[in-house]
C-alpha cells in the first residue's frame, strides 16, 4: 500500500462561538477566538489517499487530477470566505477545525472516483495547531 498526499491552501475568516451561550461564557471558553467580528487563518489541507501503484502509470492516482478535485469541491468553497457564514456544510456547526475537517471529508469523499480510497485529512489552522481525521 502506498500513501500519496496533496497539499492545498485556503485563507478564511471564522470565529468560535456557541450561540446557545452568553457572550461571557463564550469569552471564557473560547477566549480571543470568540471575537464577534471574526479573525482568520491561512489554512493548510493535506489530503492523503492510498492504493497500489498502477502498473501502467506508476500512480496511485494522478496528483494533478486529485488537486483539481480538491480545488473544485473544497478550496473554491472555503478560500477567501467566512467559514461560519458562507460554507453550507458548516451551517449550524461550531466552526472548530475538528468540525471543519469532518465536513471536508464528508464533502470530498462524494467526489473522488470509486477507485480512490481516502485515507486521511490533516488540517492545519496555524503552524502549531492541526487536526487529523481518518474518516467515520
Amino acid at each position, binding site marked *: 500500500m502506498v500513501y500519496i498526499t496533496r497539499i492545498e*491552501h485556503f*485563507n*478564511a*475568516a*471564522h470565529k468560535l462561538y456557541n450561540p446557545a451561550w452568553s457572550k461571557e461564557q463564550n469569552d471564557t471558553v473560547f*477566549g*480571543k*477566538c470568540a*471575537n464577534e*467580528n*471574526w*479573525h*482568520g*487563518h*491561512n489554512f493548510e489541507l493535506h489530503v492523503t489517499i492510498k492504493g497500489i501503484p498502477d502498473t501502467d502509470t506508476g500512480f496511485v492516482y494522478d496528483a494533478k487530477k486529485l488537486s483539481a478535485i480538491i480545488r473544485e469541491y473544497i478550496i473554491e468553497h472555503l*478560500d*477567501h*470566505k*467566512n467559514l461560519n*457564514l*458562507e460554507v453550507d456544510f458548516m451551517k449550524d456547526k461550531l466552526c472548530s477545525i475538528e468540525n471543519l475537517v469532518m465536513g471536508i471529508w464528508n464533502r470530498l469523499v462524494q467526489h473522488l472516483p470509486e477507485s480512490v480510497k481516502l485515507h486521511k485529512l490533516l488540517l492545519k489552522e*496555524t*503552524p502549531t495547531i492541526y487536526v487529523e481525521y481518518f474518516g467515520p
Partner: protein
Amino acid sequence: MHKVSVFRKEHFNAAHRLHNPSWDDAQNKAVFGKCNNPLYHGHNYELIVQLTGMPDPDTGYVMDMKILSDLIQAEICERFDHRNLNEDCAEFKHINPTAENIAIVIFEILRKKIDPQLDLRIRLYETERNFVEYPA
C-alpha cells in the same frame, strides 16, 4: 567591528478585507477580487522585526530579544491578534489593510518604542508566498 542585524519572529491571526469605500462595489470587486469579500477572510500573519546596530559592549546584545519579543507582543500582537483589522482596529479605520499598509503601521508603532540608534525594518508575510518589507 561592524553592525549586526537581529531578527525576532512573531505571529498574529486576523480577519480582513480589501476595500476602497470611495469606489462602487463593481470596481472594488474588479480590483481586489476575492479579497473584497464583505464577510471577510483571514490570514496567519508572520511578522519579522529586524534591528541593526552595534552590539552593546557590556551585554553583547544589539537589543535583548526577550524585551523585543515582549514589546512586539504588547504593541502589535495585542492590537491585531484574533481581530478583524477593518472593524476592530482604529489604525485601519481609514487605511486599506493590505500587507503593505499593515507593515507601514507596524513600523510606525515600533519606531517610537525602539532606540532611534537602531535601524528598524519590518518584514510581514501575509501567506507563505506573499510578503512585504518596509522600509524597502
